């Protein structure tokens, strides 16, 4: 499951650190203690920045890095499509073998396909993505801060 792509993102994360944002969320995976604080900044409907701090396993950290790389600069609708595809892949219990079309959408994120075979780790991979979704909803609704737990 530890693809080189994942290890690379883990060791050299993209866009790590907290910068200005329209909304900030804090998500925790209570079963393993993984945490992320994540901010989004929008430029109209374009994602201007996703900044984050967190602690957790290589999967959750690498996943946040991939997210940053994939989503920053994208239009919201496009980002949501990517998020949906990633979610589908992660919930596939190893049943989806990513094809070219999926690889085009997910880029580095296809490396997480192997993680979907490990139910205990799927939540790690999804942590930042759930946080991003939540932060986006808040940013669009006006940007109030909130603390939430990912069950």
């Amino acid at each position, binding site marked *: 499951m530890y693809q080189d792509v994942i290890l690379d993102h883990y060791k050299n994360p993209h866009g790590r650190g907290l910068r200005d944002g329209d909304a900030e969320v804090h998500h*925790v995976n*209570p079963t393993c203690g993984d945490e992320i604080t994540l901010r989004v900044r929008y430029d109209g409907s374009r994602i201007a920045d996703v900044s984050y701090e967190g602690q957790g396993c290589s999967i959750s950290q690498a996943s946040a890095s991939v997210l940053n790389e994939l989503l920053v600069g994208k239009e919201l609708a496009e980002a949501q499509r990517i998020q949906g595809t990633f979610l589908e892949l992660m919930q596939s219990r190893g049943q989806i073998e990513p094809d070219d079309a999926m690889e085009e959408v997910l880029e580095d994120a296809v490396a997480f396909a192997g993680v979907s075979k*490990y*139910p*205990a*780790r799927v939540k790690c991979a999804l942590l930042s993505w759930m946080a991003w979704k939540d932060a986006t909803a808040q940013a669009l609704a006006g940007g109030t801060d909130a603390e939430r*737990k990912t*069950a």
Partner: protein
Amino acid sequence: MGVTQLPGLLDTEAIRKDFPVLDRVLHDGKKLVYLDNAATSQKPRQVIDALSAYYERHNSNVHRGVHVLAEEATALYEGARDKVAAFVNAPSRDEVIFTKNASESLNLVANMLGWADEPYRVDRETEIVITEMEHHSNIVPWQLLSQRTGAKLKWFGLTDDGRLDLSDIEQVITEKTKIVSFTLVSNIMGTVNPVEAIVRRAQDVGALVLIDASQAAPHMVLDVQALGADFVAFTGHKMCGPTGIGVLWGRQELLEDLPPFLGGGEMIETVSMHSSTYAPAPHKFEAGTPPIAQAVGLGAAVDYLTSIGMERIARHEHALTEYAVKRLLEVPDLRIIGPTTAEDRGAAISFTLGDIHPHDVGQVLDEQGIAVRVGHHCARPVCLRYGIPATTRASFYLYSTPAEVDALVDGLEHVRNFFG
């Protein structure tokens, strides 16, 4: 004695090969005739093997493990939940809670309601409704709840032929009623109760309904959605599964709203010394290491029963019950306690035999290899109601045969001669 042919019987010759214990020979040469199925069923090879395979290959604690065994054990345990959910047609697998037996399932509901907030809370202003034919496990939890909260405990009485007397249903179930808990099938008399009438009245007054399906799940198609109840309880060991496991099905919104019962590992979301939050159902109600192997065994039992078909099992037992009632009524001085036809009744038949005490009946039958249960069958109020100290109960299952009914009837003749 020739082989009696009844319509709807299963191929018991094949089925009996699956149950090792049925080969037992007792008392120098008497073949076991096991007619104590309402107390517990025997286990097919498929279930025994599933248990061994679990312990020999996959044993691990479940959840949160990142090693192979932990993942396998978790998949097996949660897979058993899927199987049970499908078996009872639960809308969601998360509505299936594994307990240690039906008694715990019933106590769980009683305790949840005692600690619940409004609108579920049972307190001194409210009423609890049960029936006079309940198993002690569906009486004592409500007596305890009533003593501890001040709520009033009410119940439906019985008619002379072993049915619920619902003539006063409007007085028994009222606006004050918070919970109505009753058995789908009586373990002592075999009576199948009219669910719909009771559920309708309970819903009219906004009361919750708990159905004790301990004697139903093993024997008929159990569809929790069709029943219309809020909770359904049953137990693994009566349905070809292992001891040490029971089930509580509950409606998801209720499981979300109601407070936990036992506290501990597995049922939490996050714990600090100052406070804790709880995991969503079903885990919220499964404190501590669950009955992992037992769930796997119950899953195998459900597979086994499903492979034969619950409708076919029900038909088999109905035919056998009809035959048994007919033959038993031929025995002089025998009085059936409960319905004397096979309509709306399960395969447990209680009776008295003149004034021969059931202990003596059971003992002399045992000497012939015939295993029945004697006593009050954890339903003493029924014995009080009919003015008898105890009964002898013969109860059948998918492997029971007309020849075993005949053996019972012959055995009873012998009992009569012995004490005559």
